[in-house]
């Protein structure tokens, strides 16, 4: 048994969290970067995954649905499936809409999901939240090792999703997605079922967001509706993707790490504020990130690694 203290503990915490953000950013990159689907309801899918896994894996409880006590891996699969089903339903209603209408709809859906989490106590225990969500094999490993093993789990998930998305990006499927993003009418004219491809990208991206939510629930051990306010769970992910370079999976992960580092850095900064300003610290941090976004959009809209602009174009190949 080891106890993690000091710098190693902070480092493990930091990288685990960055990995979870990386998954969210990859999911968004599939939707926005590859397909051009404007989802600003990330917080909703993130929350659905977190609650699904919490309900499946915690011990039986009187105060909310379940506590099915199932293993961690079932929780992760459940998180992905439930998020996928929610995305499917939303997609059926909204994916035919224009980009800006889709954006408004996803805000609405995230807001309604938040209301459900808050008000349906029988399902989610309302504002009191769900506690006691264990890390996998926590009682076997002890607190210290459980943290390290969990970090490995998160990084493995991130690696697997990255490799899968890179392969998908290069596959004929990925090419159709990009064709839809660049010119929907042309893709349609060449016989592609545009709505179906968009649906696949939307559902798959949302499943990854759900997985990130599930991992988050086990990482923190406690979830409540407050954790899924759109400021953090949606806005920060967008800043990460845009900073890293939308359309580029490596950029998405890099953006997640860099912006998470900046975001954590601002906390060190605001910790130095006098105590009477402590309540304002959160606002100041959001202000800094908001300004950062505007600076990126004005000076380097293609992000650190670029992606959408810098398309390498060899001789035109007979795609698909």
């Amino acid at each position, binding site marked *: 048994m080891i106890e993690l203290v000091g710098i190693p503990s902070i480092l493990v915490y930091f990288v685990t969290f960055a990995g979870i953000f990386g998954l969210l950013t990859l999911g968004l990159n599939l939707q926005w970067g590859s397909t051009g689907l404007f989802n600003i309801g990330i917080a909703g899918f993130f929350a659905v995954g977190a609650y699904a896994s919490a309900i499946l894996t915690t011990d039986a409880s009187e105060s909310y649905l379940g506590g099915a006590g199932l293993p961690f891996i079932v929780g992760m699969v459940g998180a992905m499936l439930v998020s996928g089903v929610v995305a499917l339903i939303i997609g059926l209603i909204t994916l035919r809409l224009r*980009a800006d209408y889709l954006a408004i709809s996803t805000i609405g859906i995230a807001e309604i999901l938040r209301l459900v989490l808050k008000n349906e106590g029988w399902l989610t225990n309302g504002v009191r939240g769900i506690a006691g969500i264990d890390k996998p094999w926590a009682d076997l490993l002890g607190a210290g090792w459980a943290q390290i093993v969990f970090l490995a789990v998160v990084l493995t998930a991130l690696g697997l999703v990255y490799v899968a998305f890179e392969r998908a990006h290069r596959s004929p499927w990925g090419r159709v997605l990009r064709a839809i993003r660049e010119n929907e009418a042309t893709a349609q004219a060449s016989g592609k079922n545009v709505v179906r491809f968009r649906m696949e990208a939307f559902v798959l991206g949302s499943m990854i967001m759900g997985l990130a939510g599930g991992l988050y629930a086990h990482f923190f051990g406690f979830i409540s509706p407050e954790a899924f306010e759109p400021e953090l769970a949606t806005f920060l992910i967008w800043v990460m993707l845009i900073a890293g370079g939308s359309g580029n999976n490596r950029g998405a992960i890099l953006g997640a790490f860099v912006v998470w580092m900046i975001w954590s850095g601002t906390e060190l900064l605001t910790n130095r504020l006098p105590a009477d300003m402590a309540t304002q610290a959160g606002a100041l941090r959001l202000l800094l990130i908001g300004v950062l976004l505007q600076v990126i959009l004005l000076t380097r809209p293609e992000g650190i690694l670029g992606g959408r602009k810098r398309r390498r174009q060899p001789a035109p190949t007979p795609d698909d």
Partner: protein
Amino acid sequence: MEIVQLLIYGIVLGSIITLGAIGLSLIYGIIRFANFAHGDMMMAGAYIALFFVVTVGLPMFVAFPLAMAGGALLAVTIDQLLYRRLRRTSPVILLISSFGVALVLRSLIQLIWGPSIHVYEQGIKLPIRFWGLGIKPDQLYILGGSVALVAALHLFLKYTRIGKAMRALSDNSALAQASGIDTERVIIWTWVIGASLTAAAGIFLAIDTQLHPVMGWRLLLPLFAAAILGGIGKPYGAIAGGMAIGIAQEMSTLVITPAYKPAVAFALMVIILLVRPAGLLGGGTK
């Protein structure tokens, strides 16, 4: 009686949503840009009025036009600083930028006034009672003020050169540009009109309820629902849309728990997007 009472509340909320939705719809129609900072611009307007009323100590009828001007100035500044430079890129970049602006505005206000609630004046005002119904004097001011502002907007759009140019750009931007309309000037005017109406809406909302940093963000969905219901770019449609959303939200408490009131606006919006994407009053030609 309860139904009539809810109808009255619905009309009050509807006139607040209407004022906000007109601005949103004009900006959407003329600048072709879904402004996600619109709710927070409303909130900023309410706080600017709070500055004039509480900090400076002016009476509300002086603070009100000053706050409208302040809201317009704020919007034009943001436009010139950010949106003007981003307009040449895709409209979606503008959308992301406005999402960030919403957050910046909210955190700025929270930094200055803190996260707790404020009111323009302390004390409880008793509603006027008639036939078993109640309406607060404030709500009568809100209704009267909204009607006056909408009438002023109507005269502006109908009779001034710039108002006509705005309608022309909204109806057919290519044709309007070909006939020599100075687009950048019309855009600035659109922000001035849209943002000052939005600031007024924010002040009315704060009078009806109270000031809070998320008051505008919470209203963003009803604003969009109203603008889409009325048909994007159609200020008169936004009036019908705003009233419909306001009344539907208040009346919905007869059948569902009040906690889900925001979902009503959303449900109406999704239905209208699926059934009549051009809006209730839309001609269906676009």
